């Protein structure tokens, strides 16, 4: 039995992965694979119909997730996963559409798309793997790089102010906002389970180790050292005020579920508004309550 055959025969994830594409390209110590495992576990626990879940990724390390999950999966352009997913969702309102991409992709180059999807409460699940830098292209400074951290385009340390993803998401109108680290696997799974059931824009930020670039440039050690940092410095505060969630360099990480509220989604609002204005002439679009009505 070759190594690959053995992995295929024994892998409990194989119903959820394109086994013909394994091994994946991620570095040893990287946290993306563990987030994918959590996602698969959430699909399993939720008993999701896998034919009705799609994954859309942008570009970057996390952008490669779409290539490994055994679902309808789309690898798009840099930063544009959210608009692609918006189109997919609006054309297929009965599908659950998940954006799986990185911090640079969703909040750097695609930041504008994110804020409008959040504003509209578009019914998407966004899983953002935050490794604090643009890893695939060589560790450049990102919108999430903590101040003072070193990056290949900030060789004397980063002097910019980073985005706090939960604060940004909350301010823009997201209706489910959580943050975890790659150490909090069960909690990531639980959050993804909740997000898949939530109607509206859900964003789950997962802080993960980038051993090859971020950690190496900052002399932070290997994956285990970073998990130890998450263990020592993270504090779970559910419902924390999102204004307090900024991340300093190697500083405290406040994690938890910060926002979980009901608000009409884009399609709910469209159907309600056009139904009011046009009356009987208007035919409801999509399934307004996940097909229940």
């Amino acid at each position: 039995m070759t190594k690959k055959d053995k992995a295929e025969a024994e892998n409990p994830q194989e119903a959820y992965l394109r086994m013909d594409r394994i091994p994946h390209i991620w570095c040893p110590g990287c946290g993306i694979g563990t987030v994918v495992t959590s996602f698969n576990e959430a699909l399993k626990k939720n008993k999701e119909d896998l034919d009705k879940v799609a994954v859309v990724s942008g570009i970057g390390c996390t952008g490669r997730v779409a290539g490994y999950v055994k679902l309808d999966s789309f690898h798009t352009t840099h930063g544009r996963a959210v608009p692609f997913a918006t189109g997919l969702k609006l054309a297929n309102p009965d599908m659950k559409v998940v954006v799986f991409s990185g911090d640079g992709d969703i909040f750097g180059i695609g930041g504008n798309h994110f804020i409008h999807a959040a504003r509209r409460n578009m019914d998407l699940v966004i899983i953002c793997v935050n490794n604090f830098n643009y890893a695939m292209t060589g560790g450049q400074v990102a919108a999430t790089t903590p101040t003072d951290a070193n990056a290949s385009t900030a060789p004397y340390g980063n002097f910019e102010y980073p985005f706090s993803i939960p604060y940004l998401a909350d301010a823009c109108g997201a209706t489910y906002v959580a943050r975890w680290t790659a150490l909090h696997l069960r909690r990531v799974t639980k959050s993804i389970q909740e997000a898949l059931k939530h109607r509206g824009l859900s964003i789950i930020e997962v802080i993960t180790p980038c051993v090859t670039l971020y950690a190496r440039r900052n002399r932070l050690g290997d994956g285990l050292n970073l998990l130890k940092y998450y263990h020592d410095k993270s504090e779970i505060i559910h419902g924390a005020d999102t204004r307090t969630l900024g991340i300093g360099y190697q500083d405290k990480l406040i994690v938890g579920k910060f926002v979980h509220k009901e608000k009409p989604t884009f399609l709910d609002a469209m159907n309600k508004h056009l139904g009011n204005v046009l009356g009987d002439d208007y035919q409801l679009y999509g399934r307004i309550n996940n097909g229940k009505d």
Partner: protein
Amino acid sequence: MTVTSGPGFSLMMENIGLACMHETPLVIANVQRGGPSTGLPTLTGQQDMMQAKFGSHGDYEIIALSPDSPQECFDLTIEAFNLAETYRVPVFIMTDECVGHMHEKVVIPPAEEIEVVERRWYTGPKEDYLPYKRDEDGVPPMIKAGDGYRIHTTGLTHDEHGYPVINAECQKQNVTDIIEKIRGNADKIIKLEEQEIDDAEIVVISYGITSRVAVPAVRKARKAGLKIGTMRLVTCWPFPEKRIRQLSKKIKAFVVPEINYGQMVREVQRNAFDRCKVVSVPHCGGWVHDPEDIYQAIKEASK
């Protein structure tokens, strides 16, 4: 479908490349204005003709149509959708501000008389479906997201499965496939409108609003005894290379007026080679040509 002009078209270039790679049928109307940059909002131009073909990075083929009237805007939009579905390719309606703002009679036929090409759906067994396995004409059939095929598509160079394969061999196959499905069907795609071309010594090639502006110049030249034919590019891309080569062997000159510094004229020059003269009649945009300028160019070409 979406509608834009130059600046919006520039912003869309990245994802036009993705559509070429994913082989997504789509239609974009570009109501051209003068550029570059913000250029001339609300004033006419035909300056995005090369961008339509080459604007996104890498090698690919697209289809571009150029209507010269409101009626043709209607007809060619239907044609654009049909071509997009037939070849799984972005199709551009490269019109201009003049045609875009023009008021003319448009005959809209009853819906049942309009020919609509249905998307080519895959019909074989589910387990045998490969997203980029091509039919004989080079175009792969499609399925719908959510129907259980669980496909993967990517902007990366990919094989029949839609899986990324990053090497020169797969790149050759992938690029050849997306180019040849258009080039190999160019004769079926290309539409030209030719007049009095059989015994012509000079052929005026134009498209969009410029083909209408050229009419008085052509009429005046015929009155002056010159043998003038006209060719209107209804399809600009793929370019009618064969036809230009054919004509270049028997005529004296092509005259190419267009509202840019000379774009499609390059294609004419490339295909006419040195077999006949090629005279460009450029215009920087903001307004249409003075027909007199086109007439003078025809007179010059006839010498």
